[in-house]
């Protein structure tokens, strides 16, 4: 591997790391993802974000900084903004879950939507970049002349290199990329009144660019450093986890992702109706089939806030619940049924307006019951989404903060009846970014995985419980927002 600085712009935090030649972590920092409000909602606070990156680099030990060969940038898909040739902004830098462009998709009829799925492999949704680009272009008018759409990771790379380009896995989240041709689709762009020229040239994650002299001088980085856009964070995580065909990557961040590698896109009616998202891998060698569950690890913070617990108290509660659960001391019939759609629903509905429901509350329901119900609901939601995929996994690899939550993992394994292989290393995504920038593949064993095995008795009990609550679960999923 090459000594690399990685930048991972997540939903709730920016992870900054430096890895040495042996892959060891030299330095790291984490900041809350800085945002500000504009008239339409929340947008990136770019001054704070770029400042945090520069500060991290400057604060490295001089010898470590001098050893850096690569900077690899990854982050959430679907975010972005219009950037002029001089790298000034012609629009706000919009967050991935922002729906300010939704009106541009409203006129699309079923035929248009089917056409878009056939071209881009994505179900029409305002999360994806296309409607945001249309909104931004309309807002910018002539001030947006020659501006191009860059994802937040691509924008950071542009600031470091002076060049604008788009990486394939991120491009495949814009709903403007022709998946089969690997080119921007003029047809998809035309459906929202855009010219395809608003999107920049495409590059593989393996293809970096030289650092700009000004940026090198400002940060103290060597001038031979090359800057890579590693790609969409879930896809970069697949690289870090050495994901193979037939395996499922379950990445657990603020949201929860389910990702398969494939030889070809899955564009059939079933996948379209299930709103599964096709894409390209960071290397461009594989196709990906992906589904995102909007409420993932964010549920932990939500519970913590609601129940008035510190992170340590909630962690202790989770540990206690895990101990009780594996000891068979949990009465599932007393646990409330939690539909954890705190941030909208996952496929196959993908309704941003969906909201969470907690049913089965009794006068003796305790805070612990709520916590257990929440993680059980998340395991149910995962099971539902996994069933949407055309193939079921040979192995499930879990990365992200869930590796610390034995309750969530065990509930998931027992409910599915499938063991999990769980990375014990943090920042698998950042390691994937380093690997891409180094043009080296990763081995799952380096993530020091541990197995979470299925207990037959608990699996059977959860199966009985699921049979009992399934009608109510399906009903709650179907109620209008």
């Amino acid at each position: 591997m090459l000594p690399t600085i990685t930048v991972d712009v997540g939903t709730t935090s920016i992870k900054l790391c430096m890895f040495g030649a042996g892959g060891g972590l030299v330095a790291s920092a984490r900041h809350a993802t800085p945002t500000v409000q504009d008239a339409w909602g929340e947008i990136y606070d770019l001054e704070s974000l770029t400042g945090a990156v520069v500060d991290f680099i400057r604060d490295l030990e001089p010898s470590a900084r001098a050893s850096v060969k690569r900077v690899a940038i990854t982050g959430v898909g679907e975010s972005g903004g219009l950037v002029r040739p001089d790298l000034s902004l012609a629009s706000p830098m919009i967050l991935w879950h922002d729906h300010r462009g939704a009106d541009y998709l409203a006129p699309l009829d079923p035929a248009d939507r089917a056409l878009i799925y056939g071209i881009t492999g994505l179900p029409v949704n305002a999360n994806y970049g296309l409607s945001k680009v249309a909104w931004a272009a309309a807002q910018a008018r002539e001030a947006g002349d020659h501006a191009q759409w860059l994802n937040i990771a691509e924008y950071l790379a542009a600031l470091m290199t002076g060049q604008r380009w788009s990486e394939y896995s991120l491009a495949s989240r814009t709903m403007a990329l022709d998946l089969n041709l690997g080119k921007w689709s003029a047809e998809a762009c035309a459906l929202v009144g855009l010219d395809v020229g608003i999107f920049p040239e495409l590059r593989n994650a393996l293809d970096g660019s030289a650092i700009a002299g000004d940026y090198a001088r400002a940060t103290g980085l060597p001038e031979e450093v090359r800057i890579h856009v590693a790609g969409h964070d879930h896809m970069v995580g697949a690289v870090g986890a050495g994901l193979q065909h037939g395996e499922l990557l379950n990445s657990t961040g603020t949201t929860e992702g389910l990702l398969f590698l494939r030889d070809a896109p899955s564009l059939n009616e079933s996948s379209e109706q299930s709103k599964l998202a096709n894409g390209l891998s960071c290397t461009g060698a594989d196709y990906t089939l992906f589904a995102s569950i909007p409420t993932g690890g964010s549920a932990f913070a939500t519970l913590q806030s609601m129940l008035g617990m510190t992170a340590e108290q909630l962690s202790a509660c989770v540990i206690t619940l895990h101990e009780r659960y594996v000891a068979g001391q949990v009465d599932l019939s007393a646990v409330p049924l939690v539909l954890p759609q705190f941030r909208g629903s996952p496929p196959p509905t993908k309704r941003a307006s969906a909201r969470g429901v907690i049913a089965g509350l009794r006068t003796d329901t305790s805070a612990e019951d709520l916590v257990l119900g929440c993680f059980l609901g998340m395991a149910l939601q995962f099971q539902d989404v996994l069933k949407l995929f055309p193939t079921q996994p040979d192995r499930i690899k879990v990365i992200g903060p869930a590796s610390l939550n034995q309750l969530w993992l065990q509930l998931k394994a027992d409910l599915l009846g499938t063991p999990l292989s769980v990375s014990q290393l943090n920042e698998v995504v950042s390691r994937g970014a380093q690997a891409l920038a180094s043009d080296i593949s990763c081995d799952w064993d380096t993530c020091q995985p541990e197995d979470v095995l299925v207990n037959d008795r608990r699996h059977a009990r959860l199966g009985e419980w699921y049979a009992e609550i399934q009608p109510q679960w399906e009903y709650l999923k179907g109620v209008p927002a």
Partner: protein
Amino acid sequence: MMLVAGVDSSTQTCKVTVRDLATGMRVREGKASHPPETIVHPDAWWNALLTAVRRAGGLDDVVAISVSGQQHTPVFLDAAGDVVCESPLWNDTASHSQMVDLNNELGREEWIRRTGLPLTLSDTVTKVRWLRDTNPEAAGRTAAVAVVHDWLTWRLMGFGPGTGGVDQLITDRSEASGTAYWSGETGEYCMDLFEHAFGKSAFLPRVLDPLDKAGVTGTGIPGIPAGIPIGIGSGDNAAAALALGLSEGDAVLSLGTSGVVYAKSATPVHDYAGYVCSYADATGGHLPLVATLNAARNFDLGAALLGCSYTELSNLALQAAPGANGLTLLPYFEGERTPDLPNARGSLHGASLTNFNRPNFARAVIEGTLASQVAMLDTLRDCNVNAGRLLLIGGAAESPAVQRILNQMVDVPVVVPEFDEYVTKGAAMQAAVALTGSFPSWQVAVAELPTAPLEAQIVQQHAAAKTMLGYDEAKSHQLAG
């Protein structure tokens, strides 16, 4: 100073208050707990009464006494005066199937037409059928059926196990009106309805008029002098209405274990929509009433889940905006009577990452509880029983959040009577009647809450959540069986 005693044998406790006959001022009082179960041996209520009398310092200086108590709950007696079996309380939900049967057999409208009661699982007649169905042997030995206050009054008269004299049982119009075998129009029992439910006849307490006297106390009752007049007593709500000096145009919202809304009316009502129970009051008028099973105890759950006190729950709720940012609670934690959902449980709706926090949850608990109560005011209005003023009483009435939020949910002035034990006060007024032959003129001080703008979305959210879960349809289906 001449003293009279009022007894409130409620669901949870027995309270005895000794008052100045001239002013109604409390002089002293005593309390004793009732068992928490919903099927209880009546001896527990008699023993609690004696304990409460003892804790009140005895009644040797008292010149008259009267008992009010929980409505509906039957006491089954054999010919010797012995209790036949344990009694199912009004809030025991095991009699749901009997309610369905009785509605099916005679028709829901027939019960309303004959008795003014949309039959619920709480009514005495469903408990009578429950005994016939579940314990035919006990039903066979039953010679008389009284309600709790009837039986306690009879015990005060010196009757009890082995004494016989069940033909000396008396009651009042309010208690008889809760049996569902008494007519508000005729003022007579509907013996055919009783016999239909029970499968045979039994002695029913003689219904006395408001200014009658039940008798005098027997000898040998610890703490209670022999030979003092006993008032006819009443159901708990009728006693409170009497003490509050309720006039036509007034409605009362009582937030205790259950939630109750009632108003004074000159005539009985027949609510074929199935919500309003046409009870009689303690003055010769009528007291149409709607009740929920879940009310102030909802706040126990809210405080427990948030790990806070009642005061903190109130403070938190006042930090949130009306509507709790869309977070909506249906508080049917133990099933519900209005609407008729005995198997329902509580549910929380509209939870998102942004609104699922402590202030909103606290507010949702209080709004959900009050929305159930406000819905009952609407049903009274549908029966042409209009409230021009709302009196807020009960254990939760002192909560600042309850007062503020209720004020935002109704379009009539809300007044909070000064704290008192209104049920014991009403009973004491009936004791005074037994002594003097007329009702005393005891004053009630009230504080009118400052007006607040109506926040219609609170009620709208609650109604939408009910619709979402299909609870609107559930009522008519379940009543029909």
